[in-house]
C-alpha cells in the first residue's frame, strides 16, 4: 500500500513476466516432447524453441550425488 512515490511503469508490466534486473542468467532445460536442450533466461516464456512444447524439465545436477545402497 505504499503510495509515496510514483513508480515508473517499466518495472512489472511487460508481457506478464517478471523482470529481473540482474544479469541474464540462463538455465538449461530439456523439452518434454523433443528432448532438445532449451536455454531459458529468467523471464522467458516457458516454451521449447524447437517444437513449441510447453513442458520443460530441469537438467540433472552436475554435482556428485551419493546414494546409500541398502
Amino acid at each position, binding site marked *: 500500500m*505504499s503510495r509515496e512515490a510514483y513508480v515508473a511503469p517499466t518495472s512489472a508490466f511487460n508481457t*506478464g513476466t*517478471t523482470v529481473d534486473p540482474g544479469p541474464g542468467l540462463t*538455465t538449461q532445460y530439456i523439452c518434454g516432447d523433443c528432448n532438445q536442450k532449451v536455454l531459458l533466461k529468467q523471464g522467458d*516464456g*516457458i516454451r521449447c524453441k524447437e517444437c513449441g512444447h510447453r513442458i*520443460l524439465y530441469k537438467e540433472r*545436477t552436475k554435482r556428485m*550425488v551419493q546414494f546409500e545402497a541398502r
Partner: protein
Amino acid sequence: MVRPATRSRRQNPADAAPLPHTDHSREDEPPEAAKPKPKPNPKPNPNAKRKAATVTPTDNDLAVRSRRRRKDSRLATAHTARNDGFDSLLEPFYHGKSMTDPIDTERDKWNLLPAFLKVKGLVKQHIDSFNYLLEVELKQIVKTNRTILSDVRPNFYLHFTDICVGKPTRLDENITDFSRYDWTSTVTPNECRLRDSTYAAPILVDIAYWRANREVRRKKMLIGRMPMMLRSSNCVLNGKSEMDMAGLHECPLDPGGYFIVNGTEKVILVQEQMSKNRVIVEVEKNNVVQASVTSFTHERKSKSYVILKNDRIYLKHNVLNEEIPICVVFKALGIHADAEVIKLCAGEDQVYQDIFTPNFEECAKLGIFSQVDALDYVGYRIKIINRYGQRRMQAQEALEALASVILVHVPVQGLNFRAKALYLAFMVKRVLMARHDPRLIDNRDYVGNKRLELAGQLLSLLFEDLFKKFCHDIKMTIDKVLKRGSEEFDALTCIQSHTNHISSGMSRALSTGNWDLKRFRMKRAGVTHVLSRLSYISALGMMTRITSQFEKTRKVSGPRALQPSQFGMLCPSDTPEGEACGLVKNLALMTHITVDDDPIPVQRLVAALGAQDISAANGKDLYIKGAYLVFVNGTPIALTRHPKRFLNDFRKLRRLGRISEFNSIFINHHYHAVSIACDEGRICRPLIVVEKGKSRVTKTALRSLRAGTIDFDGLLSRGMVEYLDVNEENDSNIAMYESDINAATTHLEIEPFTILGAVAGLIPYPHHNQSPRNTYQCAMGKQAMGAVANNQFLRIDSIMYTLVYPQKPMVKTRAIELVKYDKLPAGQNAIVAVMSYSGYDIEDALVLNKGSVDRGFGRCQVFRKWATTLRKYPNGMEDRVGDRIEENNAPIRKHALLDEHGLAMVGEKISSNEVYIMKQVPLNASSTAIGSDYGSGEYRDTPMTYRLEDPSYVDKLMITVNEADSRVIKMQTRQTRRPEVGDKFSSRHGQKGVVGIVAEQVDMPFNDEGIVPDIIMNPHGFPSRMTVGKMLELVAGKAGVLAGEFQYGTAFGGSKVEDMGDILIKNGFSYSGKDFMTSGITGESLPAYIFFGPIYYQKLKHMVQDKMHSRARGPRATLTRQPTEGRSRDGGLRLGEMERDCLIAYGASQLLLERLMLSSDAHQVDICETCGLMGYQGYCQTCKKTEGMTKMTIPYAAKLLIQELLSMNVMARLKLEDEFPA
C-alpha cells in the same frame, strides 16, 4: 522369490533347456503342426507378410491375424507381436491347446470372452455412453432447443442447425475459427495432466440467423468446450496403436473412460437408479398398496401414484393438492361408463371386481357423472403453478395437468386420453393384483428394476441444462441490443461472448462432482471422483464401480443384500466393507450397459408381428383369456393372442440383426405381459444361444474365431450369441455347461468365471475360499503396490507407489490375462513356508528373509509431488522465484540444494526443512483500480520447504504454464524403501499381515535343496479363515515352478490339484506340497514336513515409515492450548474417552489428572471466592478487590468454556471449597 529358486533347482539336462512356456504344449506335436495350414478362404495376403509370419509358430492365431489386418504397416514387428495388446490370445489355448488341437466346444467356448473384450473392452460402457452423447444425444438436445427468437423484433431468429464436437485442443491455442481450416492440435492427455489443464474439445454449432434483412449462415461456431473422455471416439487416443500411444506418452493398457479436468483425472462413477417410466408396486405400512411410476421425458420429471388405502383407490401426484378417487380420474380421462372402467381395471375376474367396486360408490357420492364434472373436480385440486396470475378455467387446468404433467411419458395426441387411461387402468390392475396376492408385489432391489446411469447420460443432462441457459442468456443479450434499435446488429457477437458459460459449467461439475440441475430438481454431490492411481488394478476397479443413490445411514438390508438377479452382471465379491457395503458394487467382466435406442422401429415391428393396436381394444379384449399385452418400455401398446410365437418371432428378428441386439423381450405370465425394452441403462451380458438342445456356437465357429476370420460381432450377427438383460435372463433357461443342456434350455453360459469382476478375477481359486475373504482381497488388491501404468515415470502424481521388481503371478487366472494384470503386476512370488518361527509371527505377522529383502523383495519407490503455481495478480504483479540466500559466498544450509535460480537441483537429496523453490510473493498485490497501479515492486519470501521427516531425492523438476498462463512448477521426489518391521503384506486371499521380524537368511529353515523361504507364515492363519484357495495356489505355484510354466487358478476351473500333485511327484516332491526342512538355527531337521512353495504376495501401501509417530512435547493448538492432533502436525497421542473410563473405573485419579490436565492444557487462574468469577493477577474485576482471590490450576479448555458461556450471557460461577477440609 521364484526365479532364483528355480534356477538352482533342476540340473538334469532334459529339463534344463529353458523353453519359453508357450512352446511347451507343442513339444510332442509333429513338426508340421506348427506350420500354417492352408486356409480354406485365403485372403489376399502380401508375400512379405507371409514370410514374416512364418517366423512365429503361432501365426495362425487369431491375434496375429487380426492385428495384421489392423496394422499392415508393422511387418517388421511381426515377431515382436507378443508385446501387442492381444497376447493373451496368443497363449496356447485353455488347457494348453494350440491351433491344431481338436476343438472341444465345451472347453473352448470361453474363447468368446477375449473376443468379447476385444470388441467391447473393459470400460466400454463408459466410452460407449460418451460416444453416444457425442454422436446422438447432443444433436437431439440441440434439435429440441434449436431456435432463439426475440421478443423485441419478431422477424429475428437464430437457428442452431447442427452441432458437433471436434478433436481436443489446447485453450491457449486460441483457435476461434474452426470452419476455415482443419486444425489438428497436438495436445495429448498427458500434457493436460502435467500442465494442470483440461482435456477438452470444442463444441461447434452451425447457425443460421437473421441479420439486417437477410439470413446469414455460419458453420462451426465455438459455443464451449466439452471435457473429453479418454479413448472415446473424439479422443486423440482413439484407434491408436500401442506404438503411437507410447509416442503420446500414454499407457496402452490404460482403460480410459475418465476425464482430465484441471490436471486431475476424474471418473464419473456409474450411478444406480430405479428404472424410469416403469410401474413398481409396493406395500407401505398399514396395508396401503401403491403402484408408482417415475415419468421421465426431456421436458419434465414427475412421479405418479395409484394408491389403494381404506379399500379405495386414489391417484396421487405432486400437482394435486389431495388424492383423487380413481373413478373420477377415469371420468376425467373420458371413460364415462362405469362398466368400461371396471372392465379396464379389473377385467372379468370376480375377485378383482369385488375389490374395485367400492370406488364407484365414492364417485357417485361426489356427484360426478360426466367428464366435465370430473375435470372440474380435478382442476379444483390442482396446485397453482400458473405464474401470471390469470387462472384458467378449472376444467382447462385439469386437462392441461392430465395431458402434460401426470404420467407424462405416455403420449397424448390432441385430447385423446385413451392411452393414458389404459396406462392408469393397468396400474390399477397391478394394485388390485398385489392386494389379492402379496407375491405380486415388486422387489425394488431386483436388478431388472434398476437402471445404471453412465457418464454420457449425466453429461447430457448437464449439457442440456447449460445449453438452455446459454440460449436464454443469448436471447437476453439480443433483446437488450435490439431494444436499443441498432439495425446492423450481428448476433454472432452474442454467441462469442457467452462461450465460457458452457465450458466452465462442464468443468466445474466434473471437478467438484456436484450435479445441480434446476430443471429436474436434481442435486447430486459426489458424482465424480479422482481416479485412484495406486495401482493399475485400483484404477481399473474404479472404472467398474457402481454407486447407488440410497443413503448409507438407512438400516435396511434389502439394498445391500446380494441379489440372485445380479448373477453374471455385478460382481458378488467386490464391494467395500463397512458403511458402503453392498451399496457400492462393481460390474462383472462381461457386463454391458445399454444406450438409448429409438422405440419407433420397435413399435412398428410389434405391429408387423401381428399384435393388435391397443387403442382399439376395450376392457373385454384386454383381459380375455390368452390375451397378452405388449409393453414397449413399460407402456402398453399392443395386444397379442400368441405371446410365445410373438416372442419367438421377435427374438428371431433380433438375432437376424433387424433390430438392435440390445433390445430385450420377455414374458411375464403373472401380468399376461410381453415386455420389450429398448431404453438406456439396462444391464446385460452376452450368452450363447441354444436351439433345439444344441449350442449354436459350433466347432466351426470357434475355429474361425480362433483363426480370426470372425469376431464377436460376427457371432452376434449370426445369432450364435446374444445379449440378454436381467429381465430377459430371468425368463430364460440358461445352462452353465454344455453337458447341462436339455430340451428346455435356451442359452448357455460363455464362461462361469465371468460372474466375477475385474478385481475379483485376480484371486486364484476363489471358489475354494470362504466368501468374505474374496471380498477382503478385492479391497486390498486396490492397495497393492506395483506397476501403475506404462507411463508411470512420465506422470507426476501427487503420490505414487511403485514396486521395484514386480513379477507376474505364478498362478494366473484367465481374468488376469484378460485385464492384463500380468503386464502391470502388483506383487511378487514369494516362497512361503507355512510354519511357526520365533514368536514374532503371532497374530498374522510375517517373518521376512533378510537375504530376500537385500535381493530386492518388496522393495518399493514412493514418488511425491511438490507443486506450486506462480500466480498473477490483478495489478500486473506476479509471484516469482527469487535467488537463494548466501552467506560467505555459499548458500545457507536451508538453501543448499537450490541453484542460482532458486529451484532445487535434480538428483539431489532433499531433507526435512530444506527449501526446494525459493518462491516470492509481491507485497502489494491488490489492485486499487486507480490509474495504472503496479504495486511497489517489493517481494516477500515464501519459500517452499520439504516437510517430511525422511529425506528423498529430487527425481524431476518440471516447469510449464497452465491455461491461465501462470507458471507451474512441479517437483517430484523419490524414496526407495526396503521392507521393514511393520510394513503390510498380503496374499491374494484376504490374508494380510505385517512384517514381525526380518530374520537373517542363515537362521531360516531350508529344504534339502537349500531353498530358504522368503516369507514364513504362521499356520494359525488357515483354520479360521478357511482360505483353501491359498493352499491350492501354493501347490499349483510349486508345480508351475517345477514344470517351468504358469498355472491357472481360474474361478470354477483352473489347474486341477490332482494334476499339480502329479507334477510335484514327477519332480521328486511330495504331492501334498510339503517338504522336509532343516532348522537354520540348530541344524536339526524339523519334526514336521513343512507346507512350502510360492505364493503371490502383494505389498500394500501402508508402511510404518508413513505412520510411525511419537511425541513427548510439541505444538499446541492456539484456541484450546491442548496438544495438536495428527502425525502431520506432530500431534499428541490422545487418551480418549474409553481410556478415560478405564482410569475412572480403576480409580487412578492422579494419573487421570496428569493425563487430562497437567500433560495437556493446565492453566493457572485467579478465582474470586466471593463472586466465583475469574480475575487476574490477584484482583477481581467484578468485586474490585484483592481479598479472597485464590490461585487454581484448571484445564485451559475449561476456562475457555466458562468465558465462552459468559460471552453468550450465561453466567458460570466457580464455587470454592477447602481442598483439605478440617
